[in-house]
């Protein structure tokens, strides 16, 4: 089982130090990611959705070992990536690459397109210059850029083309895992579709594994095999795509789906129960369900202890973190 997993994350927690101390005199910390576990099979895509500040990007950056302090284990292709440090970590970094959100700040303005793609190969070592040139040619072709564009600088490309360079860079070391951190949310809609289709065709071509971060459920539905819904540092729901979109049952997931704008006449009148209420303060320990303060179905007991992910009755792997899941299943 674990041999086919490109990524297996267990009990990942990330917290950031804050200014000031709490009542016990300890340094205040913001718990951005609280004990989440997930895995991605090789060649598959896991989508993590959630609103701004839900911790989805932090979780992904922790997987790439780009946040300073974290707890939990990160197994990539059977090796314990989470336990590596300094030199060993630096050498292993080529196994996980990132496609960034903003194609304007993610490319070094002083490097030519070809050298941007070459950079990871140089750090990884072990390839000769001619070998690198061959890989670069191949990748430029694969992402739909022309050979003569290799000598251009980032500012001479459009947003979509820049994102293609970013994708080629992420592919250059043939990583075991590619983290796509909102790869299309900075692009306009027509270009979004091109880039998403490119990501899909590259996945088929090279057998890539994606960890796909997004707030856009439409994009996630198009791209992902499994979907995890994150809220305030924890997973609320974790299911495969069919099961999730057939019946998202966590109140937060429903709220997310309701928030997707539609063009149907009258749709807004019936649906669209916009959730209000305050979000919890993550610098304090959580005593109950994080969504309780905003949940339309909140009941007695929801705020007393933290609900854990549990398989939804009647499915094999559709997990929910909600005390009232059984009631929803019955209805």
């Amino acid at each position, binding site marked *: 089982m674990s041999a086919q997993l490109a990524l297996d994350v267990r009990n990942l927690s990330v917290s950031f130090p804050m200014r000031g101390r709490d009542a016990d005199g300890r340094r205040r910390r913001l718990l951005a990611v609280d004990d989440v576990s997930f895995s991605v099979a090789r060649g598959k895509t896991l989508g993590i959705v959630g609103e701004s500040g839900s911790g989805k990007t932090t979780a992904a950056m922790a997987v790439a070992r780009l946040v300073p302090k974290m707890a939990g284990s990160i197994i990539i292709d059977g090796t314990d990536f989470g336990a590596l440090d300094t030199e060993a970590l*630096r050498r292993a970094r080529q196994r996980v690459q990132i496609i960034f959100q903003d194609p304007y700040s*993610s490319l070094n303005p002083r490097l030519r397109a070809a050298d941007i793609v070459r950079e990871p190969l140089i750090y990884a070592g072990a390839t000769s210059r001619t070998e690198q040139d061959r890989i670069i040619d191949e990748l430029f072709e694969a992402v739909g850029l022309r050979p003569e564009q290799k000598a251009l600088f980032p500012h001479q490309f459009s947003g979509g083309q820049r994102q293609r360079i970013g994708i080629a860079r992420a592919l250059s070391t043939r990583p075991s895992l590619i983290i796509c951190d909102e790869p299309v949310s900075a692009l306009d809609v027509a270009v979004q579709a091109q880039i998403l289709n490119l990501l899909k065709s590259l996945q088929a071509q090279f057998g890539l594994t994606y960890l796909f971060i997004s707030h856009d459920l439409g994009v996630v539905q198009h791209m992902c095999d499994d979907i995890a819904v994150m809220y305030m540092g924890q997973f609320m729901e974790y299911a495969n795509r069919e099961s999730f979109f057939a019946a998202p049952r966590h109140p937060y997931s429903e709220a997310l789906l309701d928030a997707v704008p539609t063009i149907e006449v009258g749709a807004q009148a019936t649906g669209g129960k916009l959730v209000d209420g305050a979000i919890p303060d993550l610098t304090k320990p959580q005593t109950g369900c994080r969504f309780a303060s905003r949940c339309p179905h909140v009941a007695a007991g929801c705020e007393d202890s933290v609900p854990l992910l549990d398989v939804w009755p009647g499915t094999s792997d559709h997990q929910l973190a909600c005390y009232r899941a059984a009631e929803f299943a019955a209805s």
Partner: protein
Amino acid sequence: MASAERSTPRVTEELVATAQHPAREMLTMFVGNRAAMVASIILMAIVLAAIFGPMLHPVDPFEMVWAPFTPPGQDGFVLGTDYLGRDMLAALLNGGRVSLTIGLVAALMSVFIGISFGALAGFYRGVVEEILMRITEFFQVLPTLLFSMVIVALFGASLEVVTIAIGIVSWTAVARITRAEFLRIRELEYVTASRAAGASNITLITRVILPNALPPIIVQAALMVGSAILFEAGLAFLGLSDPNVVSWGQIIGSNRPYILDASFTVTIPGLAIFVTVLSISLIGDGLNDALNPKLRAR
């Protein structure tokens, strides 16, 4: 896959045609700046005069060659003679060599110290930043002229000590600029991308962030050559410079008592300093405009 992916590149053919290296774009911008170009030509003339002048006019600037206070143009002395009857032209050419060298070396030195402090502070943050920036602030609040006078007084008025003294008191601006640029750039995604690709901290500092932080540092360095020349002139005027070499400031300082009798002995080296520093400032301004992408878009 090709058909869908190839829908964009029509535009790029024009892009390829107009493709320009950023450095060349910068040069075009700089050449278009008339003040900076004129200043460059003047400065180049001054530098050439300082390098080759003493060879073409091989007169010892310390030797008494004629009657004191010979006005410029008289008796074959283009710029006249000073209070000891020494050739002013020889003094000016030799002094230019010294002043420019001190300016350049002191500026390089303060750029080196400033970049080291600023880069480490901006990159590592935390305790390192606290310590380095407190040291920077310490040097910043010291009265610069007084401090450099103390150094020269303690270690003797040789050319090296004067240069070092100027370098030591003027690096703080570079440190602050470098730190600010590092703080900005280290958060950009391409730095994260390089780190995720396996770049070491040293690579990140020297190969990824520093090249992108350089433009404002270059401008500051150019301006600093000018201020170092001024500073040296100030020290020399106060008599705190190497008595065995001529510099522009030293000419002014030694002829100071005779400013009313033979004002040209003070005015000529003063003009030399003025023109040189002004040219350097204008070049610095031109560099600033050329290196600043926001202005370039206009």
